[in-house]
């Protein structure tokens, strides 16, 4: 039946989109770690990967959005789903921008801060991954959404704490002010990924309540 076939195709496209975002988060962590380890080749690969993933995510979300509108599917949740897709897409956009900034500005990260940046990247990545799991649950099991959302909040908080202590240590060090400000900017850059994930999580919490009604 065409109605069911198309729904399956569309559901798969949404899944692919979420896979792409989750993969983007993993690439982000790998990219930051490669940069910290001064593995230039590995870092260049992650830049190439994230470019591909970001454009794939864009294409998938556009296709899903236009089909939902054209066929007026899920009238009650269409706005929510479109909002969810667009905001989730912002996460991978943020990841791309962040990695590109590393590539363009080549910040000099002293050895004592490498661990902090690594932890911050991991926490941001985990927050984004938990968000993807929550978004997936929204489509199948709205009641399970909250189980994933609490993880998003947990990792975002962790990222906040790591970032805060990292920035304090940076400004307490002997580095010159320009260097300190540059490093703070990069801590903020990495942390923003988890902030984006939390923004989507807040919306998703409301979408999930609406779905349960």
């Amino acid at each position, binding site marked *: *039946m065409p*109605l*069911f076939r*198309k*729904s*399956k195709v*569309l*559901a798969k496209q*949404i899944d692919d989109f979420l896979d792409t975002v989750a993969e983007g988060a993993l690439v982000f962590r790998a990219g930051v770690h490669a940069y910290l380890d001064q593995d230039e080749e590995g870092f260049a690969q992650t830049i190439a990967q994230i470019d591909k993933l970001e454009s794939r995510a864009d294409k998938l979300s556009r296709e899903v959005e236009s089909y939902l509108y054209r066929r*007026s*599917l*899920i*009238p*009650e*949740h269409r706005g929510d*789903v479109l909002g969810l897709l667009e905001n989730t897409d912002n996460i991978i956009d943020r990841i791309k921008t962040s990695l590109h900034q590393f590539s363009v500005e080549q910040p000099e990260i002293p050895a004592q801060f490498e661990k902090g940046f690594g932890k911050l990247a991991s926490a941001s990545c985990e927050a984004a991954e938990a968000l993807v799991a929550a978004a997936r649950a*929204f*489509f*199948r*099991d709205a*009641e399970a959404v909250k189980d994933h959302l609490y993880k998003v909040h947990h990792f975002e908080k962790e990222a906040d704490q790591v970032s805060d202590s990292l920035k304090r240590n940076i400004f307490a060090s002997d580095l010159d002010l320009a260097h300190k400000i540059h490093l703070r900017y990069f801590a903020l850059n990495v942390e923003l990924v988890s902030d984006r994930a939390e923004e989507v999580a807040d919306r998703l919490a409301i979408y999930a309540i609406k*779905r349960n*009604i």
Partner: protein
Amino acid sequence: MEILIFLSSGLFLGWSLGANDAANVFGTAVGTRMVKFNTAALVCSVFIVLGATISGAGAAHTLGRLGAVNALAGSFTVALAAALTTFWMTRLGLPVSTSQSIVGAIIGWNFYASAVTDTASLTKIVTTWVACPLISAFIAVILFTLVRWVLRVAKPHLLELDAFTRLGLLVVGAFGSYSLGANNIANVMGVFVPDSPFSDLDFFGLFTVSGVQQLFFLGALAIGVGVFTYSERVMGTVGGGLARISPVPALIIVLAQSITLFLFASEGLEHFLASNGLPTFPLVPVSSSQAVIGAVVGLSLFKGGHIRYRVLGEISLGWITTPLLAGVVAFLLLFVMDNVFDQQVNRVQEFAIDPAVSVELELLDIDDPGLDSFRNQVFTNPAYLRMELFRNTGLAEPQVDRVMDLARLGHWQISPQVMAQELDKHWINGEQLAALRLLEGRSFEHFWQMEKALREASPAWKSRPGTTRNKPWNKELSSKLSYLERIFRLDEKDD
């Protein structure tokens, strides 16, 4: 030509029925934006036409409710009154029962023609207002609990659930439209069947479309046009005006409505259960408009949702107003028709307790000294006669009704001509036909005499003991007898 003018009010009634009742089957689907109005209107109209033409033709032998009105101009006026009332309610966006507006208009005719109103039909209307929404609400809540559990276990993808709900709304809507057409076409067109201007059409020897089917097709088209042109407003009330409805509950509501009609109004189901020795559901008067509103309200209350009580109040008021307004409008229109246009809106029905009736009453053991003053007189006002019988005799209500029934006068003849040309030999079975042939040429002054003669001629004309299993047989027999009463009656045809 005259029939075409008379037919117009049937078509108007069909149109207003379509404009109002389509909301019962597709209101929630359109209100939740799951099905586009145009798609809903198309599916609804097609299935109404199919239902009316295929299944509705089975009801061609009965005149529908309007059959109670014994003159064509009267039927025209009663149909017009019912149509105007339904149209007015549709303008207000209120879902009402078209059957109730027809019954209300007939009661208006009864008053005008001094005919006797069956009190059961009044009780039936009031029961429908109360019992039907309650049953439907209860079924909707049970279904909702069940569906919620299934969804929790099955965890379908949001898009798959959407596709399934959409399909469900279309399928249930299509079935609902089919039965809407099948059940209501007799009310809209049945009364015009004896005067149908159509003759049978033969399509290259492949199949024949009977005159009745053509007439019903025309009526169904009128219903379809009503759906397309004017049903959106009532759909808005059912599908969102009364309470906010989500797609899955929208499907549950139409399902609950169909199940209510199926379980509590289906004689077929009752017969099936009874013949298999299973307990049956009590048959209660139900109406799809009342059922769908009951389901919406029941489900919203259960889910703790918000109901717009002002809209609910308007709907309830609309239910009460419909039969009353239809009755008053019918009465006024009949007066105009009779006095201004000089049309015969009712035929005078004579009653007499003649010697034949007296003998029959004795056999039935209905005796009262008060009856003597009525003997060998002709009465033309049934309501007056009934009242006088109550006043002057000690007879109970069923006995008075029996006396009235026996006293009804007329002229029936089993004429060879009607036997050859008019009688539907596919419907009247072999044994019954043989009995009719045996009585060919005989005349009767009371129809019960003809019934009695038929019973004596063949057991195929005898009713069976009143058990649930025998219900379909007795119902069929009674509609066959009404049919004979109509086609063999001479005095009405001469007019």
